[in-house]
């Protein structure tokens, strides 16, 4: 009983995390940049949607405008900051620190504008509870999260494998050098990639706070877990990232049954470190 409810909760949070992981891996696989500021884009999406709803915009419009804002921010960071740094052949460490600086800027602007309080984010239907199989209770927000996340995952798969832009992106990701020589224009592709991933991460960025409230400094831990999911799943695998995000969240939730709660996050990272020692390529690594 308890286990079943924990399992279902794990699927919900896992799916949201899965989209964060998919969006992050999209960027990392193509640009090889560890875009920590992505956590800032994720956080900002929620706040923008909240503001718009407060001003009377209907929910779907608020979501679309928030996604547009995220896209703009992400593309800005890529085009203005990362591209410039790459042109000067900056090392990954330099870019990482620039990204950390950007994250600090975004988080503190949000904290200054919206205060550091945990803001309440509700829609009229968001707390409505539905009971499904075996006495498991889930809110409509939780169910929506699963539906949207799975839908987004399917959408990304379709985009990556069936559209021309998607194929171009995969090409650039798999062989940047060759992409440079052909007419693929990797730099422009990088901007498209970050733009697309930023719009994508706005979805959990809005759905998760709907369940748990908005806070300006809360984006880093999910991003870190998502990164682990990405790497454990095999960096270039979209499915790997999504599935592993759910697996890791389940491990954290279900481990509560056996070990005290303080240790559940520690255990996750411990398992990951072991992973890195014995199977660094990840579970779903594509055969090259």
């Amino acid at each position: 009983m308890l286990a079943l409810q924990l399992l279902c909760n794990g699927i919900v949070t896992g799916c949201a995390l899965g989209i964060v992981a998919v969006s992050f891996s999209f960027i990392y696989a193509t640009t090889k940049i560890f875009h920590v500021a992505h956590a800032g884009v994720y956080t900002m999406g929620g706040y923008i949607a909240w503001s718009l709803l407060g001003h009377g915009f209907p929910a779907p419009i608020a979501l679309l405008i928030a996604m547009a804002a995220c896209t703009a921010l992400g593309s800005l960071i890529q085009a203005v900051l990362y591209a410039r740094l790459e042109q000067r052949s900056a090392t990954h460490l330099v870019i990482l620190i620039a990204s950390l600086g950007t994250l600090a800027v975004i988080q503190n602007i949000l904290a200054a504008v919206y205060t550091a309080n945990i803001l309440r984010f509700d829609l009229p239907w968001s707390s409505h509870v539905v009971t499904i199989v075996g006495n498991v209770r889930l809110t409509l927000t939780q169910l929506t999260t699963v539906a949207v996340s799975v839908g987004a995952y399917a959408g990304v798969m379709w985009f990556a494998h069936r559209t021309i832009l998607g194929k171009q992106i995969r090409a650039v990701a798999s062989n940047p050098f060759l992409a440079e020589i052909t007419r693929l224009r990797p730099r422009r592709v990088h901007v498209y990639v970050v733009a697309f991933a930023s719009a994508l991460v706005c979805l959990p960025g809005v759905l998760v706070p709907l369940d748990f409230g908005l806070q300006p400094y809360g984006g880093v831990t999910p991003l870190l877990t998502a990164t682990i999911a990405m790497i454990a799943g095999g960096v270039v695998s979209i499915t790997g990232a999504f599935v592993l995000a759910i697996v890791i969240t389940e491990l954290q939730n279900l481990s509560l049954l056996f070990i005290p709660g303080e240790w559940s996050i520690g255990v996750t990272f411990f398992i990951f470190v072991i992973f890195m020692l014995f199977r660094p390529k990840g579970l779903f690594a594509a055969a090259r």
Partner: protein
Amino acid sequence: MLHLLRRAIGALAFMLVVTIAHADTIRFGAILPLTGPGAMIGTQQMRGIRFAVDKANAAGGVHGEKIEILFEDNQAKPDQSILSFNKLADLQKVPMIFTAYSGPSLAMAPLATRKKILLINAGAQADKLATASPYLVNTLPTIGDEVKVISKYLIGDGKTQGAILFENDAAGIAGRDDFVKYFPEAGGTILSQEPTQFGQTDFRPALLKLADAKPQVMLVSITAGLLQMAQQYKQLGLNFTVAGTTFFADPDTVADPSSEGFVHTQVRIDAPPALAAEFKEKFGVEMEFFVRQYYNATQMILTVTDKLLAEGKALTGENMHDELFAIGKFQGLIPLEFKSNTATVPLDINVMRGGKDVTIKRMSSD
């Protein structure tokens, strides 16, 4: 003859310097978390202090002298606090510093003793604070005091099987340890306990695990995310009693229907409506608990300062400390009485009903 003259000039010059120094603004310090996870509360505390000081200055200051508060951001970290403390003590020579959060306050306590600087805490409640330093004065009861009161009430109400939900940091753990000690002492049993991370608002796994132990009451020791906890408690369809301390007094949580029936101790600190309205107009937000706490503490300090200056004594930490205990009783937003380093205050038992926090029993914290 000449050297006597030189002495006299020296003495005069010294007196002049001292009086000029006195004619400067009076400076006090405040070391609070203004950024980072504690900023939510730290900002409230800062506003409380500023509100009180601005009002005093608008009325002409204390004894004709303006008050200035030097705010330092410690991000709730002890090492930042120590640096800020030394800076305020050495460079700005403040006699008194406002502090918040248990960790930083405990870290600064030995320094306060050594340098004889009065540390006023109006927000943290760890039990160790009561005896950390003769110069550390707490204007609100320790968690232990509150837990004793709520435990007795719950047992009296027939709720003897308890489970603890606590935040895994200094404040939350202090509350957890007190529940583990005082709830059984009052006649109850602790069935289980679950931690959550500060700032992390997914309480469902912890709530579910606690529910599995089938308690009659859940004893809560968290400082952030209370509303989210209440909402998730309701969504999961749980129905044991939920009990806590003053940390429960979050307006959003009180107003939300999911907190119906939550019971808690409450340090009775109310703001007269006119004052609350004035605050809201100035800062654009409600005058919440920590605002009132620090406003009250600032008023207390202003009273001490006023009396010291009236008696012609120097404004040093030692003098302020002695004067505070000499006065002993203060009437601000709430009556404060100092029989020890921790104030004795009125303490109520409140229940959240119909969107309001209703007092059902009046008690005291000693």
